[in-house]
């Protein structure tokens, strides 16, 4: 009974907190003991759903798509160079974003996939990126390909290169973006993600300015989102943060999103990649 009451109070506190406009708040009234009980139960829930991640279904579909001749050139993606050489998928995601000489740009996985679909398969770029995210009955090809590729880096150490001048530039731009305050609430990524112990309702927010916090987030995205019943890519995740900051939605594969991902990847560098994850 005592336990139930404790949970009830914590939930109440969490809901009240959510009503405050500044959505990510430091914990208020709930005592540490109360919080711990709730957090432990949520942790148990997360463990229970982790075994049996529907992301595997997207990996399966993505792998099939990778190996199937598609587009006007009827080519597979097996010649796609994700940075470790044409056709090498194993471990490639853990070394992204990186500079690619053929496009002259730093690219994350998603913008690189688009390049391969355009250059190898002859697809039209505008069409490829017209609907990059699945919704309702619509299934996104890009999200399936992302699932396949990131699944092939499970257990591989995150280590994107930071040598080329453009890689350093992307990292610096990403850091600036992370700290950049704007929008009607004068929010930046850092507003919610630069201190320990912050949360939105029951979700604790990782401190992305620390290696450990960035690793926790970066190593478990992309992920299957159970609330949406969809596998979500890293660009989707970045867009969702921008949405919460009331920023305009960035273009798919845009330089600034790639830069932000570069910053996060560098912060997480050295930790093992554990995705694709599963999230509430």
């Amino acid at each position, binding site marked *: 009974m005592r336990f139930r009451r404790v949970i009830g109070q914590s939930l109440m506190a969490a809901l009240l907190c959510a009503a405050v406009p500044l959505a990510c708040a430091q914990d208020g009234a709930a005592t540490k003991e109360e919080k711990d009980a709730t957090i432990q139960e949520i942790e148990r829930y997360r463990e229970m759903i982790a*075994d*049996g991640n529907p992301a595997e*279904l997207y990996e*399966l579909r993505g792998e099939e798509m990778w190996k199937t001749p598609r587009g006007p050139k009827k080519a597979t993606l097996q010649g796609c160079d994700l940075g470790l050489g044409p056709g090498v998928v194993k471990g490639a995601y853990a070394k992204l974003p990186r500079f690619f000489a053929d496009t002259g740009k730093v690219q994350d996985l998603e913008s690189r996939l688009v390049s391969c679909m355009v250059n190898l398969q002859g697809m039209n770029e505008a069409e490829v990126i017209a609907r990059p995210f699945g919704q*309702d*009955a619509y299934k996104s090809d890009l999200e399936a390909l992302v699932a396949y590729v990131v699944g092939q880096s499970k257990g591989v150490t995150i280590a994107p290169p930071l040598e080329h001048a453009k890689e350093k530039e992307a990292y610096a731009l990403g850091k600036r973006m992370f700290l950049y305050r704007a929008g009607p609430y004068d929010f930046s990524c850092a507003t919610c993600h630069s201190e320990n112990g912050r949360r939105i309702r029951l979700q604790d927010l990782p401190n992305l300015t620390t290696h450990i916090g960035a690793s926790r987030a970066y190593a478990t995205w992309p992920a299957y989102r159970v609330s949406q*019943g969809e596998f979500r890519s890293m660009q989707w995740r970045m867009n969702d943060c921008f949405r919460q900051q009331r920023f305009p939605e960035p273009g798919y594969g845009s330089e600034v999103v790639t830069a932000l991902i570069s910053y996060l990847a560098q912060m997480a560098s050295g930790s093992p990649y554990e995705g694709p994850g599963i999230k509430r």
Partner: protein
Amino acid sequence: MGDPMKIRASMQGDVAEIRVLVNHAMETGQRKDSAGNLVPAHFIKHLTATVGDKLVVDAQIGTAISRNPVFAFKVKGAKAGDKVVINWQDNKGDSRTDEAVIA
């Protein structure tokens, strides 16, 4: 024809553990899509599992089972190498059969 399932089957001691990930929308008929239109009910009604040609599980399913559902079963008397076959049928008459071998 539905999308492929992912079946994992392995011996844990003398028990075969079977886990199935199913690609299915499992629409309740009460949800609205992003445009605000009611999405018609679309859900699996029957799911069967056979191991080595023996029917082991015959399930009736309702709309409360989650989207992209996950099922797990345990079977005695099976052995590594036995074939596991999973079949589902939904309310629109669609169906799908996939198989795996117990590891």
